């Protein structure tokens, strides 16, 4: 204790700071950084959990490049991204833009749109799975039948299954994006709009020349945030296709589901780790490209 008393105020601060950080630093080292290194290491090894870990060099990565399933999954993952991100961005902006202009029961309307964000992906995946069933079970097909429209194949069709699985993911994320957009719209100083009004500018010009350019930081945030979400899609796909995960014929399988299958059904840890490294690279590259494209100008 006398040692502590003899320290200067600055030195005491250093002691306190590292006391506060001791457990967290240990945590981040052991639970975040060590596993990251370990995942990269395992990706260069062969290991089925039971046998010995043997050095494999680039074997797992070569296997990945030669694997037609991987390329299918790679394509699916990007379709989730390229469909999901723009669609949810446009819908949420349109809703936020108009909702912002309403005062009558504003809080109630906002609540309706936000509610799906509070649900769990697993529960809602099962609800939507029921919606998608064939006549006479599924809600959507029953509705269509009511209008005399022939049955539509949702989850059983190789072309329709992916958008069908994506829809509840977009739906659940809209509420979050809408309120972020509304906060962004509110933050635009009204002086800009006054100036526009004095100049007698139309709403379209105000929208494209003032609102959207000034919302750039909000748009960057939403695009990056939702892109990461769609690239990591798993819960919805897994639960809507439990009878044939990622099916039909891998038509809905995203990279995370392939990782799960490889690691915890085939126990091919080396191969699965190589896939996780690829996922990491994809997330990194996509985020960097988006930040570069959207931030500049």
């Amino acid at each position, binding site marked *: 204790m006398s040692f502590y008393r003899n320290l200067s105020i600055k030195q005491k601060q250093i002691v306190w700071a590292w006391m*506060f950080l001791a457990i967290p630093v240990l*945590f*981040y080292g052991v*639970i975040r950084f060590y596993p990251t290194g*370990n995942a990269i290491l395992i990706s260069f090894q062969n290991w089925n959990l039971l046998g010995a870990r043997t050095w494999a060099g680039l074997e797992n990565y070569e296997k990945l490049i030669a694997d037609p399933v991987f390329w299918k999954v790679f394509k699916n993952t990007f379709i989730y991204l390229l469909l999901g991100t723009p669609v949810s961005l446009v819908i949420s902006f349109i809703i936020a833009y108009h909702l912002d202009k309403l005062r009558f029961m504003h809080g109630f309307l906002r609540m309706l749109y936000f509610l799906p*964000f509070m649900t769990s992906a697993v529960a809602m995946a099962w609800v939507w799975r029921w919606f998608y069933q064939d006549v006479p079970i599924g809600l959507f097909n029953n509705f269509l039948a009511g209008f005399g429209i022939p049955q539509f194949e949702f989850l059983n069709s190789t072309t329709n299954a992916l958008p069908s699985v994506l829809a509840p993911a977009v739906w659940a994320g809209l509420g979050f994006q809408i309120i972020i957009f509304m906060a962004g719209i509110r933050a635009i100083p*009204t002086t800009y709009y006054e100036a526009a009004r004095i100049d007698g500018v139309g709403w379209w010009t105000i929208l494209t020349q003032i609102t959207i350019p000034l919302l750039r930081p909000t748009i960057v945030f939403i695009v990056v945030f939702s892109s990461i979400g769609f690239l990591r899609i798993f819960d919805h796909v897994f639960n809507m296709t439990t009878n044939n995960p990622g099916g039909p014929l891998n038509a809905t399988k995203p990279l995370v589901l392939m990782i799960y299958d490889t690691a915890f059904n085939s126990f091919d840890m080396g191969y699965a780790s190589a896939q996780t490294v690829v996922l990491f690279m994809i*997330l990194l590259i996509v985020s960097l490209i988006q930040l570069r494209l959207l931030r500049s100008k």
Partner: protein
Amino acid sequence: MSSTDTIRASSATLLAAKPSKKPKNMGQIIRWLILFAGGILMIMPIVYMISTSLKWPHEVYNINLIPEEPTLDNYSYVLEDGRFYGWFANSLLIATLTTISNLLFDSLVGYTLCKFKFPGRTLVFIAILSTLMIPTEMLVIPWYLMSQQFGWLDSYWGIIFPGLMTGFGTFLMKQFFESVPDDFIEAARIDGLNELQIWWTVAMPLVKPALAALAIFVFLGNWTAFLWPLIVTNSVEMYTIPVGLSGFGDEVDVAWELIMTGAAISTIPTLIVFLIFQRFIIRGVVMAGLKG
């Protein structure tokens, strides 16, 4: 123009431009009706889930929203064997413990990085920030191996340990501690409080809104978490609600009224909490989203 003038001018116009409570013209009425219809459409999946959970099996395939003879039969059937109570308790425990841990550690680290000057500060900050770039999916395999080695598989600790602290929470709290004046901390130091007391009794009460926002995010995230609990749990008793529900759906296969009941049981509690604290939660989500 000075900044105060700008504020005064804009607030004046804001007041003047504020639309009255009632929609004034046809355009506003149409806009309201369309948005109202859209909002109703948004909650339809939730409404149908609840409606179907109250229907008898023979009525499930009708698209009517209000059950002809509402019944709680499905609920008593689903809850009968007690598994859902167990999963519910597991999820509640796990989400609560994780939330408490994040509130304590994320704020302590955020506070330290914000208010202390010490060698290694930038390094620690960048290291923690960089963990935001590491996807969970990359870590589940090493975490699984770690859990296997230390006997953490199929235990509460096994489910909880990866989420005890988050870079997101730390970064969020650091941002909010920036707004706590250094003078307050200096004054407390002169009053003879030690650093732990200053953090807990002076700084923490000043960032309560941020703590609440973080709590909402962490709790909801852990309540709905699926991938890691699915991997780390083996026995039915250890399942969380999402993992249990997923297995239950497969088990009852085509009994959609039972699946809807299970889904409703896992969803309704968060919806009730949301409806009670609606304004507060939305403000918290915006705050966390924009600052984090």
